[in-house]
């Protein structure tokens, strides 16, 4: 598959951390089926540490692979560390995506931030990495989404 590298293909064909955590501490969603990709992530957080993360994604190979690798990357990290994850980090970890697909990597870090925001709302905690973050303002359609390239 010339389109994706082996690592991307591997995460796409055998994604890690697929599913939904029951009684999750934080749940976040990003994207929409209309734009072709939507990721839903649920987190289990203990002592400000992400002990588990699971995702469900509707989307193309890059979206699924990004979801898989991003959940891998945050499990075991502190919440602040997870918030610091950028789509660039996801891209690097995947070893790159085709230019036309790079935007898919945004899916994961946005969904993670939303899930932590949900956790913060419920617990009243504040995080530096959430400063200025507003899940409603950050409308999928505006910022990342449906950025289609002809």
């Amino acid at each position, binding site marked *: *598959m010339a389109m994706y590298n082996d690592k991307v293909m591997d995460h796409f064909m055998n*994604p890690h951390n697929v599913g939904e955590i029951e009684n999750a501490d934080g749940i976040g969603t990003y994207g*929409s089926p209309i734009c072709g990709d939507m990721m839903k992530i649920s987190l289990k957080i203990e002592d400000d540490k992400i002990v588990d993360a699971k995702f*469900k994604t509707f*989307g193309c190979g890059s979206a*699924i692979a990004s979801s898989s690798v991003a959940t891998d990357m945050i499990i075991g990290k502190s919440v602040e560390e997870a918030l610091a994850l950028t789509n660039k980090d996801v891209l690097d970890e995947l070893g790159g995506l085709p230019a036309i697909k790079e935007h898919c990597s945004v899916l994961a870090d946005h969904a993670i931030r939303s899930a932590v925001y949900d956790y913060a709302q419920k617990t009243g905690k504040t995080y530096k990495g959430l400063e200025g973050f507003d899940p409603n303002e950050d409308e999928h359609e505006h910022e990342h989404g449906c950025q289609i390239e002809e």
Partner: protein
Amino acid sequence: MRRVYLDYSATTPVKKIVLDEMIPYFTEKFGNPSSLYELGASAKTDLNISREKVAKLIGASEREIYFTSCGTEADNWAVIGSARLKKKYGNHIITTKIEHHAILHSCEYLEKNGYEVTYIGVDEKGIVNLKELEDAITSNTILISIMFANNEIGTIQPIKEIGEIAKKHNILFHTDAVQAVGNVDINVKELGVDMLSMSAHKIYGPKGIGALYIRKGLILPSYMNGGAQENKRRAGTENLAGIVGFGKAAELAKEGLDEHIKKITSLRNYFIKEVLDKIPNVYVNGDLEKRLPGNANLTFEFIEGEALLLYLDMNGISVSTGSACSSASLVPSHVLDAIGIPVEKIHGSLRFSIGDFTTKEDLDYTVEVLIKVVDKLRSISSVSNEKGW
């Protein structure tokens, strides 16, 4: 691993008998058909024999066939050439929302150059409405370009009726028949079309050779300026081997047409029935009767098409998301949009196209794989029947 090619609408392999016919034209019979000496003159003779074979496939006469480098060039030439030819009579062109990009982008080019284009819609089955077409005609209308059969959903338009409308209003009528040729019995004389585009690589001929049928008496300005080839209408040294391959492929297509249609239609119907029976939440897009024999365009709810395509590919099965030439683009299909499929479902649509080398076993294998991979992708998906979109 079994290899199952189900993308015959994107391109076909060259049949062995076609290739065998081409080979000598690369090496021994390589003369330039414009050259006066024997090697050139016999190349010209063979070229015209191929022209006759292509003509026969659509009921045209030999002198009405002009070879081009592909279906795209034939489309560009027909649309832009007609616009130039008729510009003193008007600047309005009518086409449809479901044309191939070769037509749509040619129309966009014309729109930037002073022409007006009406893109008429289609019903939810993918068929144009003749009344809408006739209503769109103005005194400025110089060309109607409506595809014979759609490349994504395979729907076949009422070409004869459109031809009658065009004739009644004295408007040129072009049809992009790249997908229809070799899959539908076509007779240009009975259909009343003025121009018709074809492409060899869709009928088991080589890539890089197409043709435009131009009705006798219609003098379309040249789109390729240069030498006196193709009766002075299309310059450039002829793709001799390609033309010979196109000729042979056309001959085979003509001979086997009835059987081809019967066999492929029955395989396609079997496939659709199997998929619909065995996988929930799958829909067929486009009219089931007025349809190319090999086309099955299916929407798999709750999953994204490219992901499904790649899963199938990992299992040796080649299919496509709509048209090959926009496959690298993320724009949702304009054709599925035109028949009213909601965008989220367009993302989950795939085209399976069946051809002469497809067997029932291939389709059984495909259904088996589909059951598994659709299930797996749905288990990953964030949307589902229970939770909704």
